[in-house]
Each structure stands twice: as C-alpha cells, then as structure tokens.
C-alpha cells in the first residue's frame, strides 16, 4: 500500500455536523449521499446569485457549519466555478477583504456581524470591499442592516434545519422537491421536513426562522 493509492474504506457517516436553533445545538450525522444531493440542489442557488463558470465564490464560515458549507463548496464545482474560504471571525476578516481583492471574487456567502466588526476595526470600507461583487449574502440580520446602511443590497443565506435557503431576487429560495417547509400554525416559525431520504431525517423540525411561505420553494423574510 502506498500513499495516494490506498486508504481505508470511507465511513458510512460522512461527518457529524450540527443544526442550531435558538442556540440549542443538535449533532447532525450526514451521509456522503446527503452532501452530494444537497450540492446538486444548491447549485442553481449559486447560479441565481450570479456565480458563473470559472468564477469564484468566497464562503465565510466556521467548521461547525460544515453540514451547510460543504454542499455549497461542492455546488460551486457543479457550476464550473471555484470556491475559496475565510473564517467567520473578526480576526480573519482581513482574509475576506484580501481574497475579494486578489481573486476577483463574484459572490460572497456567510458574512456576519463579527466579520464586519473585524473589517471596520481594520479601517476597511464596507462599500468598497463588497460593492464590486455580483452578490454578497449575510447570515444575520444585523450584518444585513449594516451592509444596507453602507449603500449595498445584500442577500440572505438562511439555514433551515439541515438545508439552506438563499435569497434570489424575489425572496428566499429553497428546494421544495427535497424539503417541505411550512409555518407552525401557532407561532409562525418555519418547520422543515425532508421529502427525500436523509441519514438523519427531520419531521416538522423547528428552524427558529420566521418568514412567509409564498409558494413551495419561495419564502419572504
């Protein structure tokens, strides 16, 4: 056996990520097939954001978000694009700015308040940093508001249990063939159910997200 030619058989469980709702962490085992299917599902979302073949999407995240991030990385490949990575921390915010500048990034996903704190602490102009992009998607309302205040038109990336919804021009889009998303009649909170097999299934799982379900696959924040 030599390096590069032989490894152990891949484990049945691709990895144990997590679903976080209202700060409650639920470990979430996923299979390789789940990740590959999510990637297939998310590729049109990246295209809708303006990512083109040979373009670059920068994903700003943390390892604990692997369940949601790795499918997006693979989705970039399905678009024929490349992805790059920066950590969603104030310290690593300089990397987000540097890579946008150096790699001629088209789309940035995952900007949060901590990243904006780090950029502003470095004296980075938010409008200049993100203004040349085709799209920038935030993951929290505070970051969204700060980018709007800077004169930008950010999109949103929202985690719906184990899957993602990403804002296109007309609202938040998710894959209604793979996921059923419905509001809780009592609270209005969105609940998610898998419609295709997943290693870890969910049945009307709370998401912590409130939005209006316009039609299958489309939400209005």
């Amino acid at each position, binding site marked *: 056996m030599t390096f590069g030619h032989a*490894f*152990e058989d*891949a484990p049945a469980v691709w990895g*144990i990520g997590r679903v976080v709702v209202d700060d409650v962490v639920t*470990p979430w085992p996923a299979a390789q097939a789940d990740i590959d299917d999510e990637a297939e599902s998310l590729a049109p979302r990246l295209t809708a954001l303006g990512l083109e073949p040979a373009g670059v999407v920068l994903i700003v*995240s943390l*390892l*604990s978000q692997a369940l949601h991030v*790795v499918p997006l990385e693979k989705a970039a490949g399905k678009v024929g694009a490349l992805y790059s990575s920066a950590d969603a921390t104030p310290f690593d915010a300089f990397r987000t700015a*540097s890579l946008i500048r150096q790699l001629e990034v088209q789309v940035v996903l995952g900007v949060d308040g901590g990243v904006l704190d780090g950029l502003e602490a470095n004296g980075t102009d938010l409008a200049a940093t993100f203004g040349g992009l085709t799209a920038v998607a935030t993951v929290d309302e505070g970051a969204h508001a700060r980018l709007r205040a800077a004169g930008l038109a950010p999109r949103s990336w929202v985690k719906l249990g184990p899957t993602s919804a990403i804002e296109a021009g007309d609202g938040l889009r998710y894959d209604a063939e793979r996921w059923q998303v419905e509001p809780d009649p009592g609270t209005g909170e969105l609940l998610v159910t898998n419609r295709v097999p997943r290693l870890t299934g969910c049945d009307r799982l709370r998401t912590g997200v409130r939005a209006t379900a316009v039609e299958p696959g489309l939400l209005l924040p």
Partner: protein
Amino acid sequence: MGDPDRRYFSAEVETRPRAELDVQREERLLGDLLPWAYERSPLIRETWDAAGITADDVQSMDDFHAKVPFIDKDAIRDFRDRHHDPYGGMLCLDPKMTEVFSAIFSTSGTTGDPTPAPYAGRGPSMLVREFWELGARPGDRFMHCLFTFRGPGIHDTIRGIGATPVFCDHQPADVAQVVRLSRDLRPTGWYTISGPMVMMLEAYAHDTGDDLREAFSSYRGVIFAGEPIGPRARRLVEEDWGLELFLQTGVGDVGAATECREHDGYHFWEDTCFLENLDPLGTEAVGDGERGELVSTTLLDKVAPLIRYRSDDLVRITRATCACGRTHGRVWPLGRKGDEVLVDGRSVMPGDVWAAIEGVPETSAALFQIVRTQREMDRLRIRVGYATDGRKGLDDVRTRVHDAVQAAVGVEPDVELVANEVLLRQGPPHKIPRVAKQ
C-alpha cells in the same frame, strides 16, 4: 480495507529503507520536479536564470546542493509586488483550470497579505499516517477542531482512515460543545488542540466544574499544533486531563511533521519533501542533530513548488531510524531565526523564557511577546499577558515575572503587563505572534 491492528498506516512507505528513500527523492526531484518548475514557475525561472543555471545543469544531488539557488519569503513577496502576481511567481498552472482545481485557499497571512493557493487535492493527505498513529481506527469518530475552515483536506483525511469527523470550532464560543461532543460521541482522535485552546478549556473547567478527564477519556491521541507547549500546560493536559499529546510543527511550508508514540522528535515524510539543515548564516550543511536553518523542497507539489526555500526556522534534524521503526527523518523546532534577540551578546529566543513566564500563576497562559526593534538590543523587552479581573497586585506580578525571566536567561528584562485578551486579539485562534516590532 486493511488490518485495523496493524502498527503503521502504510508500513511499506513509513519503514522504507534509507537507500530507497534516497533513490525515490532523486527520481522525483531530478527527473520530475526541477524540470517542471524551471519550465513553468516564473519565480524559479527568474531565480535560476539570475544564478546562471538551467534544469539541465542539475543532474545529481551534488549538482543540486552546489548550484540550485535559494528562495525565501522576501523573494516571493518581491516577485508578487514587481509583477502584480498574487501567487508570487510560484504558480505552474493556470488557477482558473477548473478541471484541475476545485478551490483557491490561502496561506495564514500572519506576516502580510495571505497568498492564494490553488487546491487540486483529491482525497486524503499524508496526515492519514499521523491520524493512524494517534490510535484512531476505521469506524471511530474523530474530533475535527482545526483552527480554520479552509477546504476538505482534513475531513477527507479523517475519512481516509475510515473514521467520521465531528466538526467543532477552535473558538472560545465552542469550547462547551467540544467537551459535550467528546463526552457524547466518544471520539478517539483529535486534530488539533493549541495553547489558546488549552487556556479556553482550563477556564471552562474552572467556571463549570466539569470533569475534563472523564469527558476526554475516549481519546487515544491528540495533535497539538500552532506553537510550542510549555511544561505547565503539558502537565495540565497530560496529567490532569489524561490526554496523550502528539506535537506537530510545520516544515518550511511543504508539509507538517508530527511526533510518534516515542515522542522523540517530529517525523517528516521523505517521500513528500526534502529537508536540508544548513548553516543559518551560510550555505553549508550542518551535521546530523546539529542546530541549523531548515531549507525545504517539495517532492509532490507541482502546482506551486517550493525549491530550496529558506524557512527562517531553526531546527535540529536527524535521519537516524526512530525507535518506532520509521526510517523517515525527524526534526526538532528550536525557534525562528528572525525571533532571536541579542542582549549583551546573549541570545534570547521565545522558547527560552516560556517556562519562566508560564511558571507565574497570573501569567500561566504563557501569552507573551518579545519586543524586537532590532536583532541586537540594549534591554530585553517582554510584553506579558496576565489573567486577573483587576489591576491589584500587578507590581508584584511584574516583579515575579521579571525575576523568573532573569533567572532563566541571565538577562534583566523590562516587563510590560497587558490583559491576556489584548494578546489573544493579535493572533489566529491557535497562536499569537511571539515577536513584536513595537
């Protein structure tokens, strides 16, 4: 796939006879890497042309040692600035080749703009050997707590030994989850823990009263990376928490070297890189086990190959076979050449004062920086982080740090105390700069 009880992940490679390692190195280097890099890497071409050689002039390892010029970080930066090339002239392929590359990652950027690094990886890395050495096996769970999320290299590698990664952040906010998931999911390997992570875990245990020895009882081995570990932190992790640490260090930006169960030096893999150990002020090789500067050459990387890269790292290297049976060389990191200060003609490196600072309870996190405005200094200046809620008693802390450092290095220091958080903000989560210019 293989016998889970086998001693090595890849015995054929890890215990390959020295003579065969040498032959393999020459074949890869002379027959493949050097002509490839000279043909395609603008920096290598420019540097070699300036030295008056071509790839055809390097037909033997003697030629390599005698003729191939060095490069270093400054040369790469200089090329980048002159040519507006973010890759510093290192790249041998078009980064937009999506049939080759899937991603573009980047270097740490701790000393400037991060340098982009196109990623052509497909599957696990050579770290499968280290993860196997920790004792992790197929079917196990494995704590993936790297200080950064840059690509699939590590989680693919964990799967390469048949284990399942458990994803956690190397961040203060996630320490409780690291403990909880260790207890609930019973991982056997952990990559990585660092000095700041030890500090976070210690604070967590202090605040919650949680029993970390019990929570961590499933681990067979943990890789410690980022910086050296002081004796106090090591005692805490190994004796109080019951973890066996395997220290890891980078080797000249061409890979990593990690301890085996003998804990007698860090193994580097000679089928992936060629390491020289040279006089830090010259070009001659130092002897086996002697102090020198690490100069690295890749044997695998055809995307951005480093060839005779002067790393600035001071090391000892031996190629004697380890008691574990591995034939590949071992390295001991001693510090960075650029970190050394001379005070009254006496050399002081961060590692020389580490244990002294760690030994004072209020500064036991060993967060400190040597202030180095130039190599030769009239006074030894040290900025030291302390953990306390108020400023009561700081003069006493300063005096004890002063005395401990003076006893350790024989030089009287000027000690500046700052809150730990001030220094932690300066670094990525797993380390801080140990030398500051001001």
